[in-house]
Each structure stands twice: as C-alpha cells, then as structure tokens.
C-alpha cells in the first residue's frame, strides 16, 4: 500500500499535501482500494467555507458510497474538474491526478493534528 512520506493523513483515509497556506486533499491508496471502482465524485462549490470534519463531497463506488470530509477548515479554492468525467483517476492515481479539493487553510494548527505517514501506516495495519 502506497503511503507517501510527504503527506498528512486523516483517520477517514484522506490525505493532505500542504504548500504554503494551501492544502490539497484526496483519498488514500488504501481508501481507493477499499472502495474499488469509483464511478462518481461529487465535490463542493469553489468558494465554500468549510470546517474540519465537515462533509464536502460524496464518492460513489460500484459497491458502496462514502462521504468526503474536510481534513482542515478553510475556503475551497479549487476542485478537480477532471473527476467529473474521469472518476477512475482516483483509483488509478489517488495521490496525483486523483486529487479532489484544494483548501485555503484557515488554521495551520489543524494540520498538526493530522497523522504522518508512519502513524497512518500503523492505523491501516491495525485495520
């Protein structure tokens, strides 16, 4: 299972890449594998203010449906429009082309509460 070292992770299997005050969020390789065959990703409006833990999207897979949560609070500044027509990118490249939203982080302290790669690895190995 691919768990890049440079990312932060949530208990709900989202990842966050922080560059300046912008966080890029998606779901982990473990999550896409568990969901398998993602056919639709519903993402929030750009400009929406969200708080940490808020539901900001829906991921429809053949077998099940899952919510996407904001891993940090802030303002949605971009969503991955490619996923509208190519939801399979989440399965194929969860940490790259399969990214979901970019959030202008309101409180960088929230980033610190996320797990690092080794902590996340422990979480999914215990699962």
């Amino acid at each position, binding site marked *: 299972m691919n768990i890049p070292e440079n990312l932060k992770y949530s208990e709900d299997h989202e990842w966050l890449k922080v560059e300046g005050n912008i966080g890029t969020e998606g779901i982990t390789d473990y999550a896409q594998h568990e969901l*398998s*065959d993602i*056919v*639709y990703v*519903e993402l929030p409006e750009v400009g929406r203010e969200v708080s940490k833990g808020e539901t900001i999207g*829906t991921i*429809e897979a*053949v*077998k099940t*449906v899952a919510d996407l949560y904001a891993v940090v609070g802030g303002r949605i500044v971009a969503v991955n429009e490619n996923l509208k027509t190519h*939801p*399979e990118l989440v*399965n194929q490249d969860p940490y790259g082309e399969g990214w979901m939203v970019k959030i202008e982080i309101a409180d960088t302290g929230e980033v610190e509460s996320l797990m690092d790669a080794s902590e996340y690895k422990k979480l999914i190995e215990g699962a």
Partner: protein
Amino acid sequence: MGKKTPLYEKHVTLGARIVPFAGFDMPVYYTSILEEVLLVRRRIGVFDVSHMGEIEVTGKDALEFVNYITTNNVFSLDDYQVQYSTMLYPHGGIVDDLLVYRLPDKVLLVVNAANTDKDFEWIVENKKGDVEIRNRSEEYFQLAVQGPPAEKVMQRIVEKSLSKLPFYWSTFVEIEGKEFLLSRTGYTGEDGFEIYGEAELGKRVWDIVFEAGEDEGIGPAGLGARDTLRLEMKYCLYGNDIDETTTPLEAGLSWVVKMDKGEFIGRDALIKQKEDGIKRKLVCIELEGRNIARHGYKILKGGEEVGYITSGNWSPSVKKSIALGYVNVPHHKSGTEIEVDIRGRSVRGVIVKPPFYKNATHK
C-alpha cells in the same frame, strides 16, 4: 470463515478480493468490477459459480412433482432442455428463482446459493408421489464461461458440436475422459455456457478453459461483474428484486408462469392477484448523472412516493446509472419520468423498456 468452493485457491492465487457471500468466501473481483463487466461483453470471462445449489429429483413422479412446485411448465421440456422458473409459497411470494434441467433419469434444480438449504427443506416438505430428493450442492463445481466467443473457446475443449446446442439446452460432454454437464445458459446476456462436474475436477477444468481461451483474451470475472451484467439485462436477483414478498407477476416474470398447466403451489394466489389487478411492477430506470440508486431508495413522482429501488448500479456497457425498482401502477409505464431520493436529494430518472443493454450476444 465461510465455506470454500473447489476453486477457492485459484481465486487467492489470482489476487481476488474475497468477500463472504451466501455463506461462501467468494471472489467479488480480481482487478476491477467495471473492467470485468467489459471483459465479458467484449471478450470472454470465467465465473466460479460453484456456490450455486444443485438439488436432484428422481423417481417415477419427478416431472409431475417439479411441475407442482414450480411455475413454468416442466412437461413442455424435452430431455436435456433447460428452463428458467420460479418456486412459490401458497401466498404467491417467491421461494426462489431457479433453472430446471430435464435430464433422462432426473430433474436437476439449480438454485441460489443463499437459498439452497431453505429450498431443499421447502421441496422436501411439499414432497408428493414417488420421488427422491437429494441436495447434491457440495458434490459439484460449476463454472460459467461467458462472452461472444464462448462457443469457439468451448469447442476447443469438447468434441460434440456446440453450434447445434441451442440456448437453454444441455448435453453431457467428455473432458479428459471425465463426464460433465454442459448447458448453453448464463446470467450475463452474452453467449455462454455453464459446466457442472465433480467438485475435485473443478480446478483442472478451470485451467483447461483458460488455456482454450487464451487467444480470445479470457480472464476471470467475479461476483461484482456478474451482478452488473445481470442488472444490465434486467435479470432478477433473489433477495434484491424478488423475494417472499413479491410475486412473479409483479416482477415481470409472468412468462415463466403457466397458469393453464395444472395445479402448482401459488397458483390460486396468482389467479386472485390477476383478478384484483397487479398493483406494482418491477421496472427499469435510467437516471440522470452518475449517482447510484441503491436498494431501498425511494422512487418519487412529483414528490409523492410511488415505489422503491431494488437494485442499482453504474453500467459500464451503456455508460449510465441504471436501476430496477417496484413502481405503483399506473406510474410504471415506460417513458414515465420519476425521481429517486438519493440520500435526501431528488435525482431525475425515466422508466425504460428492458433490457438496458441491447447488444448482448446470447443465442
């Protein structure tokens, strides 16, 4: 841990995702459900369906008895012919849907894995005349080889000419000196065959089939793909679309109910239901967008509840979100616009004529 089919180790070796299903550990997919659906539509896929139940009825009155416990007309079958049928409770609800094979010395009933024990008990409970009933499920493996080149692939394995085996007929074939029952049947809409044989021969036959289909791009397909393939054809799944609370008349299965064949369990209830008028029908729905309508979601018409979804999924073959559901008469007609409540949001859909996928190759 569930029961394991004779092919279980093959699935593990192939890296299948294994899930519990009907008491068995079964492969839900090997690589991707969507890819495996398209594998069967465009090339050829092999399913391990050894979990299915096989119940044998023998004895002088076997035909008469099976005719009494099922809705289709068993006496219309010639030896080796196969028929789709349902088995009903006296109130008209469905015990199970099944395949009935008329063989020279017995009638073979192939039933849903989750219902095998229930069906067997039901059949024994209703036993009539000179018959013997045996649950042989554990003794058999069953493979389904499905896809447009299925005949070509299977012909490389068996000597008998398969071009002469029509849809829903069976025959005994020899593979490496052993005997197998082969029928031109399936649950996918594509041309295809199902092979039954002694459990311990399953792995060998699996290998032989894969070798024979190599040039056609043969691959394994899991239960996930099987579910989507059958949905694209509007084939009912017991437990989703039909169960003890639904009748075959509501489910659009009146073509397997022969009211004039003589007495059968459930007949009186169906006659009454017909007289009173059918109140709801199982229909095909195409939805806007890519959300999936899942089992139990409400179907609305102008905001008013008119039914519920029984099965739904994304169809990679027609590239639409498709679903089956019961809709109250008179809202059931094709062309009717409805909405589905998908987690609190109304998604528009339209009732369409079956099947969703119209280019299937079944004979």
